[in-house]
């Protein structure tokens, strides 16, 4: 992995931290859009040979992760009229500390994992693990349904980075399938958020327990 790829990976980490400290939902969505762009250029930045495969992947990622998904989510918050994550169960300082712990753990674990994909994956594995764990931090500490979608996206981006370590092996179709999967998932979640909001007049996921038959 050469220098530019490392810089992009670090920026991915930084965007994760930015989400952890931000409570304004629209900002969170924009940060995730920026992360989508970063993920899209990551293979190019780390020096993968440019070709049809890569071109489709890059453009597909940008379209879905940086344009379509943020649009849907922004639409959802506009319709649902939520702006902020009001009651995260832990404050921003504690979230950042958890994030740091997650990054530390990820780097520690990554050195102990067998390198299936060779030295090219050196920076990718820890960053993907860290994104995964930070996604879990968001998922477990936020309460608004939309924040949970963002956490899910973060987690998924972590998996995407991990997938890049195998970029040479996986056929294009599988990757595009994964992208589409996420797209459908977030699309449905956006709709669900909207519906929850209309039915319950709240987005607090704790109220979902009231939906029992």
């Amino acid at each position, binding site marked *: 992995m050469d220098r530019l790829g490392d810089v992009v990976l670090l920026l991915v980490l930084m965007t994760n931290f930015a989400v952890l400290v931000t409570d304004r939902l629209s900002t969170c969505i924009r940060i995730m859009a920026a992360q989508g762009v970063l993920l899209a250029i990551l293979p190019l930045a780390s020096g993968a040979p440019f070709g049809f495969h890569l071109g489709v992947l890059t453009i597909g990622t940008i379209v879905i992760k940086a344009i379509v998904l943020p649009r849907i989510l922004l639409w959802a918050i506009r319709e649902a009229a939520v702006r902020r994550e009001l009651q995260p169960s*832990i*404050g921003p*300082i*504690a979230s950042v500390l958890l994030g740091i712990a997650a990054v*530390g753990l990820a780097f*520690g674990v990554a050195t102990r994992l067998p390198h299936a994909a060779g030295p090219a994956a050196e920076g990718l594995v820890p960053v993907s693990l860290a994104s995964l764990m930070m996604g879990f931090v968001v998922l477990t500490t936020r309460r608004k349904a939309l924040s949970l979608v963002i956490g899910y996206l973060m987690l998924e981006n972590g998996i995407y980075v991990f997938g890049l370590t195998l970029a040479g092996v996986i056929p294009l179709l599988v990757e595009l399938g994964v992208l589409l999967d996420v797209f459908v998932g977030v699309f449905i979640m956006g709709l669900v958020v909207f519906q929850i909001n209309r039915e319950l007049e709240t987005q607090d996921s704790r109220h979902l327990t009231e939906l029992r038959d």
Partner: protein
Amino acid sequence: MNALLAAVAVWLVGALASWLARHHPDRSAWIGAAAAVGGAALGAIAALGALPVRDAQFFSAPWSVPYGALSLRLDALAAVFLLPLCIVGALCAIYAAPGPHRRANGPSSGAGYTAFNILLASMAVVTVAANLVLLLAAWEAMTLASYALVVTEHESRAARGAGFQYLVFSHVAAGALLLLFLIISGASGTWEIAGLPGARAAVPFAWLFLLVLVGFGTKAAIVPFHIWLPDAHAAAPAHVSALMSGVMITMGFYGLARFIPLLGPPSEGAAFVLMGLGAAGALGAVLLALVQRDVKRVLAYSTVENAGLVTLAMGVGLLGQALKAPGIAVLGWAAALLHIWTHALAKSLLFGGIGAIAHATHSRDLEGWGGILARWPVVGGLTVLGGLAITAVPGLSGFVGEWLIFRALFDGAVVLHGASRVALVVGIAAVAMTAALTLACYARLIGIGLLGVPRRAPPADAFARPGAAMIGSLAALAGMCVVVAWFPAPVVAALAGPVAMLVPAGDPTRAADVVRPLGGIALLASGVIILLAALRTALVRRRPVRASVTWDCGYATPEARMQYSASSLAEPIGRVFAPLLRTRVERHGPEGHWPAKASWRSRTPDRTMTGVYRPALGGLSALMLRLRGLQEPRVTTYLRYMVLALLVLLGLLFLPIVVRP
């Protein structure tokens, strides 16, 4: 060795004599104080003699107790702990010496000196005991004597409660020690400490380490075994708190330093445990110190914090040994021992000064203090110096200890790799935050307590001329705080002997070389500050200097109660750490159109107590209540129990696993 035996003898005779004279409080106190000082002088001679020497001095006499022997061994490690014991012990005795300024405490003051002398003697024996039974006996004597001192003011319910709590925790710890000694002496077949190494106990290292931690860590106030300390220190008289805080807790560290190497080869895991407990304890305790209202509890929690720092440093020392990095190990152990010394000096100075002020104003409530420095300049000034010394700012002793801890952490982080590097960097961040919080804590204690104007009017006779004995003892402590900071190299060089014992592979003189430049920085900073102060005086001399009121923003009738309070000063920090502290606030805001009364009260409980011990002890006592059913008001029932117990014990003899003597 002879000097030490003489010292112990002087202390014990002094204790006896002051007990016999207890009906004449003044005479009894004089005898007790004189014996304490005389014994301490002899003990200090012994300690100074043994400190640089590589070989231990031995003394042995038969003792009728089974497995026991009056065998003593004075080596460098013992001397490190003996020296502050003698210095602080003597100065505390002088500080409390009877004089015209001190009101008689009634008959208990004579008994108090009895216990004080026994405490000194028993601590001295703890450091030199070479036999496990003797060590345990001295340990127990130390606990009981200090208990007697804690409940000196036994008229107060709080003091009795604190004393009982102290007794309970001490005895749980003593139980752990007894178990530990039984296991390790069983494995090696001897009760002499010298014969212990080499033998492998059948019990895994982790269990032995846990027993050491509980047994000695309780006395050393390592979190979470510190819970007895704040109450006990707050209840005891000032000179006793000083001795307990500065010296008695170090007996726990003596135990750790002496026994951890005996358990087996140094282990990385044990080092991490010590570092973790130390860092968490230091941070948690200083946060609690920051929110206390009772001045003596502030100091008590600060003691727990410093104990945490020492524990952390010991952990670094152990880590260095486990990873075969003797350079790091030397720095870690030297930092731990040095911090024990500097803390003993600064904390006794503070307990002395703050205790005298509390005595004079009849109040330990920080919110009522203020303006002490202007009204009682000498005692106040010495207390300010003590506060600066313990805050670890350059130019005073605390900085040298804390600098060495930082230096060990930084050195280790650069040299070691992997998990150790992470642990050391986390340690750096934790100590940095602890240092900043300590600064806030003492800025609050001094700034609110001693500066400004009194928030509550002190008694008319409060600020009488302080006695020469008290001032002298405090000034001596303050002087030592300055000397250590300005000439750190010789002081640290004196630690080379014990460090060489603890880290045989290392170069023990390294620590002294490392701290040498600090003296230069202290002198440079002092010089620059003096020059600037002189410049300021020269600039101001020819100009008009007026005295006026503090800027009051045009408000017509400012009064003393409008000053910033200690609680408000700490509030922003408390709010950030609210999830950890769980401060409870009772607030009754002003109501109605003509609000008359409003109140605001906050209380921050120690969460180890409310979260761990209370529920655990509650569960235990519920369990015990169930056993009550076994009791019946009939003698035959108990006879039946006795027969049953006898039969069970006899039955054990038929089992193959029991080893018959």
